[in-house]
Every structure is written in structure tokens, then in C-alpha cells.
């Protein structure tokens, strides 16, 4: 790993160094959540100092994908307590006795053969919370870098990748968790283990709720099945849990992304930055907006 870092530092956008790094992880640390998390945090500094190094950011995209895959696997396993399943290899889609992808059969067959998923386990909860949190943090990093270092296309490309991953994960996740939603999410907030480090993390209002954008004047005032405290806006008294730092604590969403583009264009002095912002907006509308 040190060799990889060294090589990456010497030659910009060093595809070989980074693909080797990926190879090392895949072959020596397969599915190891801790390693993935550590890599994500240790590479933060590196990419911040190499903002036009596409390979570095591509590596982060790989890490995120791997983490999401691992966490989603463990999430869906808790919903499908088949004794025969064991722990499936994260990398094998085919040799699976169950019809289709393990995640897909979670809801249907689980309810038939096993008792209804009752209070989800702590691991399950932190897996659920961890994914949006991961995306949120990555988007925050991206925002920070875009604002600090205007005019680097790599950063905007990275943003596209992350948002795309998030968008699709959320779509898939919402699809699978259709059944268990009501019981599962309200308990999100009680898991402080994973969230305690991050005071302003994934919104307690649930995962990726575009509609809870008070900025757009659509704040949910009343009771919502997803909300624990039943308020649409942060209760000023409840400072500890709902401590808000910087403006937008919600997981990424289309309206907030448009807001971001607008704010960049507003304060922007670099012509390239302006171009990249506009291109990103166009991408959002044409690719995501569908």
C-alpha cells in the first residue's frame, strides 16, 4: 500500500498505481469493512491535495461501491434468516441456490418461511444508517473541495459518480425495503453507536427524502411514519441529537444539488468552474431527472 501511495504521488493520475491498490484490496482484504473504512478516511487527505488526480477519486468510488455492497449484503441477510445461506461471498452473483439475487428474495420469502422481521438488530440498523451517511460524507468532501479549489473537472466528475451511485442505491433500497419500512426506520435514531461521531449526519427524518426540504417551503409539519420526534424542522430544544452544523445535513437529493449548482454559479469567478457547474446541472436534468 505504501508502494502504491509512493507511486501515485510521483506520477499524476497514475492508473497503474491505483489499480494495483485496488487489486491488493480485492485479493488481500476482501469484504473487510474496517479496511475499506480506513482507506476511505486515510485517502481523504491525499485526494484533497491532488484535486485533479482522477485516479485517486476513482479509487474512492471503488471503495464506496465496495462498502455499499458489503453493507447492503449484511442488511439483507438480517432480513432473510435462512439457515442454509451462511455468509455468501460478496463477489459471487452466480453460485447461489436461491432463485435470483439474495437481496431480491429478502422480503418475499422471508415473510413466508421465517417470523416477520421484528425489531431489527443493531448491526442491521447501523448498516442501514451507514450507507446514507457514507454518501453524505463523500458529497460533503466533494462540495468542500469544489468550493476551495475552483475549476477542476475531476471534482465535478467525482460528484457525478457519487450522486449516481447514491441515486441508484436509494432506488434499489427503497424498492427492497418497501415492506419493512415503517418498523425499521424510526429506530434509526436510537442507534447512536454509528452516528455519535457525526453530530450532523443523515437526517433523522429518514433516507433521502426529497420532500423534506424546508427551503422549498415543503416542511413536513405533522406526523410522518419516518419521523421519531414528529417534527418537520429541527426542534431547537433537541440540540444534542439534531445538532446542525453547516447548512444542509440531508443526504444528497436532486433539489439540494440544484441548490448547490446555483450557489456555485453565484459566487463563481472562474470561467471553468462556471462551465463545469452548468454541465453538472445539465447532467442532473438529463440523467437523473428521468
Amino acid at each position, binding site marked *: 500500500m505504501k508502494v502504491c501511495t509512493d507511486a501515485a504521488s*510521483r506520477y499524476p493520475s497514475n492508473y497503474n498505481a491505483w489499480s494495483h491498490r485496488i487489486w491488493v484490496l480485492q485479493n488481500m482484504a476482501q469484504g473487510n469493512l474496517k479496511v475499506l473504512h480506513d482507506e476511505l478516511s486515510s485517502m481523504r487527505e491525499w485526494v484533497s491535495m*491532488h*484535486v*485533479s488526480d482522477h485516479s485517486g477519486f476513482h479509487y474512492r468510488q471503488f471503495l464506496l461501491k465496495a462498502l455499499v455492497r458489503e453493507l447492503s449484503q449484511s442488511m439483507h441477510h438480517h432480513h432473510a434468516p435462512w439457515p442454509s445461506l451462511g455468509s455468501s461471498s460478496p463477489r459471487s452473483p452466480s453460485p447461489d441456490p436461491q432463485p435470483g439475487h439474495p437481496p431480491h428474495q429478502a422480503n418475499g420469502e422471508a415473510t413466508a418461511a421465517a417470523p416477520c422481521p421484528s425489531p431489527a438488530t443493531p448491526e442491521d440498523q447501523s448498516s442501514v444508517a451507514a450507507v446514507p451517511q457514507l454518501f453524505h460524507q463523500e458529497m460533503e468532501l466533494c462540495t468542500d473541495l469544489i*468550493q*476551495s*479549489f*475552483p475549476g477542476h473537472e475531476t471534482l465535478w466528475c467525482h460528484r457525478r459518480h457519487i450522486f449516481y451511485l447514491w441515486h441508484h442505491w436509494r432506488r434499489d433500497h427503497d424498492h427492497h425495503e418497501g415492506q419493512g419500512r415503517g418498523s425499521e426506520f424510526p429506530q434509526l435514531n436510537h442507534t447512536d453507536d454509528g452516528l455519535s461521531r457525526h453530530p450532523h449526519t443523515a437526517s433523522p427524518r429518514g433516507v433521502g427524502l426529497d420532500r423534506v426540504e424546508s427551503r422549498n417551503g415543503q416542511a413536513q409539519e405533522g406526523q410522518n411514519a419516518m419521523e421519531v420526534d414528529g417534527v418537520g424542522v429541527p426542534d431547537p430544544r433537541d440540540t444534542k441529537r439534531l445538532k446542525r452544523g453547516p447548512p444542509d445535513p440531508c443526504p444528497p437529493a436532486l433539489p439540494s444539488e440544484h441548490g448547490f449548482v446555483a450557489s456555485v454559479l453565484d*459566487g463563481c*469567478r472562474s470561467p471553468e468552474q462556471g462551465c463545469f457547474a452548468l454541465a453538472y446541472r445539465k447532467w442532473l436534468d438529463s440523467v437523473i431527472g428521468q
Partner: protein
Amino acid sequence: MKLFSLSVLYKGTTKSNLLKAAYDLSSFSFFQKSSVQEFMTFTSDLIVQRSSIGSRASVKEQEYLCHVYVRNDSLGAVVIADGEYPSRVCFTLLDKVLEEFSRQVSSIDWPSGSPDTVHYTALDSYLAKYQNPREADAMSKVQAELDETKIILHNTMESLLERGEKLDDLVQKSEHLGNQSKAFYKTARKQNSCCEVM
């Protein structure tokens, strides 16, 4: 993102005068270091010479960006950075260095000074500190004083030259470059390969 050199010079009427310089050559191989340093000095000198008094400019040369500020009192500074390093922070650095330098070194010494005679030691630490732009400078997004539209952008070193002037000739005549560096430059140009340093 990296800073490679930081120099303070005096823009005289016919030539400029190097007063002090600091270099970070850690990313260059051992055999390249001395040539690289010489070329950076040569470049900084040339840039100050060809910049008007009271101007700021950024000169691009291959993957390097040289940012210069020549004050109204003819004191100038040049920082050579890579393409990633935010130029705004560079100009903040140049302002800062010149301000401090002018306070510590009397203007009488500027026209005739040299790195050996001038007493100013902060350049090395500035260069080191500013390797990380966000730590060194709050990177305030609103810089009321610095009008970025006034910064002249040069896409090559050539655009600094007078009509008919050739960079090759300037290299040949330069006092800053040793024979090895000059020979290296010549070979690189002949082979038409990108001279890594110039």
C-alpha cells in the same frame, strides 16, 4: 498540489536582481535538482523583468504556473507552483512576503542586494507552510482587495518576450544558468522533447 520556489527580486531599469529565494525540489530526482533550481531562478528573473511595475500575472509553462507580483516600488516576488495549486492563495502569499520583506530589508539595499548579503530568513518557512494551501490560508472566498480580472494570464513564457526575441538566446546569455543546464536545455530543444524543467 505543490509549490516549487518562492523568490524575491528587485526590478531594476535594465535588469532584475535576485534578493532571496527558497526552493522545494523534493519531487525532482537527485540529478535534476541543480538544473531545476537554476531554471527556476532564470524563469523568476525573466518574469519580473518582463512584468510592468504594479502588475500581477500568471505565466503558464508546461505543467507549471508562475505567479508574479511586482509592486509599485519595484519590489517583486515570484512563486512557481503546479496546476492544481489555487492561484488566489499564491497571490495572497506574494503580498504577504513582500510586505514583510520590505519591512525587514531596507529599500536602499534592494537594487544592489544578493541572496548572500540580504538578511531575510522567512522564505523557507513560508514555502513549507504554504504547501498546504488550506492550512496556510483561510481561503476566504471573498477577496475584496484582489481584483482577479486584473491578473494577466500568459499561456507560455514566449508571450513575455519581445518581438523577435528568442528564449534560446536568453538562456544562452543567462548568468543564472550553469553550462550544464544550458547544454541540457539545448539538447532537449533539439530533440524537440518537452524540456521537463523549462
